[in-house]
């Protein structure tokens, strides 16, 4: 009895520092940001008088913030769809026990090891309309593929998606590959014995078993894309007419260049809300499944 409580005491003592640190530096600061976002602090000197929802209303009216929300949605959907699709395709191909699998696996995974800043700078050069891949297209006679890339406001955001997918699809490939390897052979054998075609095996046996992997990948990639800052900042900045602007960039400029701290805090809170919409149902779901039978 004494033994157990001593263990417990040590456990609590060891957890306490991190609990306190997380409490202050994560939840405390979220609370502080929420408080600032409701204040009048829009000059360099702190002014914490209550302003209600003024900052949020100003944001909703702002042309730039409307563009930001639109861009975030487009970016998140296309980035998720493309990363998952390409990741799954690569994983299925690699799962065919090809020769040199390790080499291919590493090639596809390597981009993930690079920081978003490096990716951004590199793709900025690659997609530069006058010096990048357009020159290559010209030389091999594929001139019709030439594009103005991120200098064309109507497709600029997709140039950023291209770079992000290049970087992260290797990650989804690795996750799907692990998932595929985890599918028990007996199930596949059973399906084949029952006369299922290879397509049916994938459609009705393997894909349903990969659902948890897809869910994890959506969570990981989704929160990256909703908060994306470094890639955009390094690659295109705000882009022509804010065609590649995202809330993170707007928040940085509003707060640290424009000295509008309360508005910057309001942008942060909306970003938190967007991520919460994605994460909270997931947490709820996992907690229920863990607690359930």
């Amino acid at each position: 009895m004494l033994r157990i409580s001593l263990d417990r005491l040590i456990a609590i003592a060891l957890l306490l520092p991190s609990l306190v640190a997380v409490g202050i530096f994560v939840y405390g600061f979220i609370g502080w940001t929420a408080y600032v976002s409701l204040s009048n602090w829009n000059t360099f000197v702190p002014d914490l008088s209550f302003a209600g929802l003024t900052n949020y209303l100003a944001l909703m009216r702002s042309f730039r913030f409307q563009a930001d929300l639109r861009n975030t949605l487009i970016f998140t959907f296309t980035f998720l769809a493309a990363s998952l699709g390409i990741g799954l395709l690569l994983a299925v191909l690699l799962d065919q026990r090809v020769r040199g699998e390790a080499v291919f696996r590493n090639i596809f995974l390597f981009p993930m090891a690079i920081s978003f800043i490096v990716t951004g700078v590199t793709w900025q050069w690659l997609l530069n309309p006058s010096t990048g891949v357009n020159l290559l297209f010209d030389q091999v006679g594929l001139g019709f593929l030439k594009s103005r890339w991120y200098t064309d406001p109507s497709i600029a955001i997709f140039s950023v998606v291209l770079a992000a997918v290049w970087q992260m699809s290797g990650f989804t490939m690795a996750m799907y590959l692990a998932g595929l390897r985890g599918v028990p052979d007996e199930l596949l054998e059973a399906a084949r014995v029952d006369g299922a075609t290879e397509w049916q095996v994938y459609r009705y046996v393997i894909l349903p078993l990969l659902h948890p992997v897809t869910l994890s990948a959506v969570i990981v990639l989704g929160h990256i894309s909703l908060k994306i800052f470094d890639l955009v900042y390094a690659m295109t900045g705000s882009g022509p007419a804010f065609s590649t602007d995202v809330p993170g960039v707007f928040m940085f400029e509003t707060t640290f260049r424009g000295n509008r701290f309360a508005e910057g805090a309001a942008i942060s809170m909306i970003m938190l809300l967007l991520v919460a919409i994605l994460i909270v149902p997931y947490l709820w779901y996992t907690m229920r499944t863990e607690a359930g039978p």
Partner: protein
Amino acid sequence: MSRRICIPLLVTALLLWLSGVEALQAGAAKQLEIFSWWTAGGEAEGLNALFSVYKKKYPDVEIMNAAVAGGAGAAAKAVLKTRMQGGNPPDSFQVHGGAELIETWVKTGFMEPITSLAQTEGWLKVIPKDLVEMVSYQGQVYAIPANVHRGNVLWYNKRIFDQNNLKPPATWDDFFKVAETLKGKGITPLSLGDKLKWEAAHLFEDILLATLGPEGYNGLWTGKTSWTGSGVKRALETFAKALQYVNSDHAALVWDQAAQMLIDGKAAMNVMGDWVAGYFTAKGWKPNVDYGFLPAPGTKGSFVIVTDTFGLPKKAPHREQALNWLRIVGSKEGQEAFNPKKGSICARTDCDKAKFDVYLQSSMADFARDKLVPSEVHGSAAPETFATEFNDILNVFVTRRDVGAAQKALQEACVRAKMCK
């Protein structure tokens, strides 16, 4: 089990001890921490030249160079603001004279006046009155200008102009004639790289000055000139027309890549501040041989000032050394060491001309003679709140070219920044 606990504890204890030691050392030795965004090329060389002048006079002081990289100081300013609000200022920091200094730091009570220093050092006699006013608030001087850049310059490729028998344009009407000729020959008339947004705003600022004249231009920042009036309307229309003559990949480039287009012979003209001259020099391009220069169209007689200044933060940890630093920055010796390397001219009017190249000498002559006006884009004319929105509005305008919408947005931004009612 016990080792697992012990090692993290030991590491933590060691870290705490080390940080304590560091804090003690900082208090003991004579130190000077200077904050800037001069980290590369001629800028870093100029800063080092200033440091060596300081070292010669005060050899026992250890100088800490707290420079943060990043063009136009975007990243550095964010770091500085965090430090100042946290009550941990450097001993002195680089700040653009005018609104950026006064609105962000002086009115908010972060700076100590240096009026008596300015008087005893005799700065007020050698620095033009317009410039002293840009670093003053309610009769007190708050910073010493280290240098002066000119914002309104038209740069052109001399070979292209000679080959086509063209004269560099003095007004925007001339510009459009020249541009039409060049376009007909397949040469991009005007190079622009506005990936960072401020470059387009910079071009527009020079057009505003050309359209409104110095008086009307200055009125924009006090509410005397209306943003919704016919003057700004004409300026926006000229800007929209000028944008028809720029390179199509402008949104992918930054200012130095736009300057490079002149060197490569891909474009004939560029409107930018005279840090471009420093870029040309670094690339081996010579003034009056390879490139020519004249005031941006329609702005002859006006000198758009971009000035870097240093002041004294209230809680400067090493006040004595900081005051000595300001003495060096304001001295003739310091400015003559710094400016030829930085590619700017002295804020003092008594510097030795022989130390500067052809372009800077002509800039010095204009500086002594012209009407000095502050730059909006570079933080001197209006509060940073407005400057940020100004860039945003013009970034949209470059794509949409909607004059009415831009005027309305500029007026709203002006009200939000409390410059007009």
